[in-house]
């Protein structure tokens, strides 16, 4: 289980830049960054070095931000690798709400991030299927 920041962004020019600057000035490096948008607003999902400190910095700067628990999975680098992960989740009845992918700093391992309704059930299903989960300390400093 790892922690991701979810940041509410109004559709307003420069707002995303403001957010990135706050993170930068707080000394936070981003591991992954993805934006979901609707007609009215966006939600940025970010994995950073030190999620709690980054969350506090964003709150102090007036952003609407939540720390969300997601699961991170090392996906085998072969055709069908992702399908195996999703099969394991599907067999356990776990619904995926959204997912995205990033590459670890050494550039060798692709990590898929899943937001699921029940992270505990997802974790045990994946462990039972022999799929390797990334822990927080693999990805960022725990603060």
């Amino acid at each position, binding site marked *: 289980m790892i922690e*991701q920041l*979810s*940041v*509410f*962004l*109004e559709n307003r020019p420069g707002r995303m830049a403001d957010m990135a600057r706050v993170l930068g000035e707080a000394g936070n490096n981003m591991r992954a960054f993805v934006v*979901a948008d*609707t007609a*009215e*607003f966006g*939600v940025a*999902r970010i994995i950073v070095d030190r999620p709690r400190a980054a969350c506090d910095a964003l*709150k102090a700067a*007036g*952003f*609407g*931000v*939540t720390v*969300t628990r997601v699961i991170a999975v090392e996906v085998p680098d072969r055709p069908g690798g992702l399908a195996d992960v999703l099969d394991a989740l599907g067999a356990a009845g776990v619904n995926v709400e959204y997912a995205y992918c990033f590459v670890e700093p050494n550039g060798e391992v692709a990590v898929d991030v899943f*937001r699921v309704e029940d992270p505990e059930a997802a974790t045990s299903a994946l462990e039972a299927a022999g799929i390797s989960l990334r822990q927080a300390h693999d990805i960022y400093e725990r603060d």
Partner: protein
Amino acid sequence: MAFQPELESMPREDLEELQLERLRGTLRRVYDNVPLYRAKFDEAGLDPSAVKSLADVSSIPFTLKDDLRSAYPYGMFAVSLRDIVRVHSSSGTTGQITVVGYTRGDIERWADLMARTYAAAGATADDIVQVTYGYGLFTGGLGAHYGSERLGALTIPVSGGNTKRQVQILKDFGVTVLACTPSYAQLIGETAAEMGVDLRDLPLRVGVFGAEPWSENMRRTIEELLGVKAIDIYGLSEVIGPGVAAECVEEQHGLHVNEDHFLIEVVDPETLQPVPDGEVGEVVFTTLTKEGIPVIRYRTRDISRIIPGECSCGRTFRKMERVFGRTDDMLIVRGVNVFPSQIEHVLMDIPGVAPHYQVILRREAALDEVEVHVEVTPDFAFDEIRALEALQKRVRSEIMSVLAVSVGVKLVEPKSIQRSEGKAKRVVDLRDAKGEAS
């Protein structure tokens, strides 16, 4: 239990007969004794004795706050100062203060009306009442005090301030009824919690709250925090003070207007024509028994409506809805009167949004477009786009149902609406900026 059941539950027909008789007497008295009313009536060509039914009221000129201001201090009194035994005044936050005078009879009737208020809230002579409304020129403290004594309750005149001492007295004196403003009730509850006193364990069981706008949500919070039934009361110094209208504990929905003493009308603030029961407008009062300073069709600037239908408590007095706005901030959108403060009331009751909003008005192709910006609370679960979209939909549909005009709603970031001197600028009207020329 009603304090004066024979009056509070009298048949409507008898009530209206009594109202008409008292109205005619009041009109005669103000015409004879108050130069301002005589001039107003003469100018309108109104002969007070020509008012022969309650429907004729609509031909009588209105009285405005400015009339009271211009008569400062005693110009609107209908009796000589020798017969006045007390004066109160309004706070004067919006200009010159106004002075209201009471005869001995006025003080007696006022005490009865406030005793009705406590009784409607479920209080009796067995109760112990802590009055924390301010005592002084403000009508709240002494009004609540005399009513409590009239009821026969043990009355503790603490007045406002020193919240820790308020909690101490609540606890040590075995207080069962608290009378104060709703925001102060909340502060007392929070202070008690900080002091390690759980008010829910004390005998305290009823709250009589008024003198400022509050919401259903706030009522639930206070009821939970203090362990009380919270009752909304209404009044204004120009009419008498507290005691004009109050909720009954049976329904806690709508405030019974003491119609044997006050004639209530609801008028369209633009046309000033009366609207039918159930429709929203400006509340107008005529006093029927006041001697010191009767007011005729006094425009309160408060926005509310009459709730149609009978009440299960047995009172026949009609109920007004909790006040949800002021005419001062009225907008006209596509010909409809819109009160932005209604938006605030809607927002106060929706979890996930702060009661901070901004209304942006534009004119697109000769049509007024309304966009309402609403702040999401900082603790919202922002990851859930569906929850955000559902919140936006809910806010939009609830705003539209109270304003009765179509609006767009945009959720904005916490604390992003600009505040000046602690208050947000509520309305940005861009309609005159473009489109007018064509």
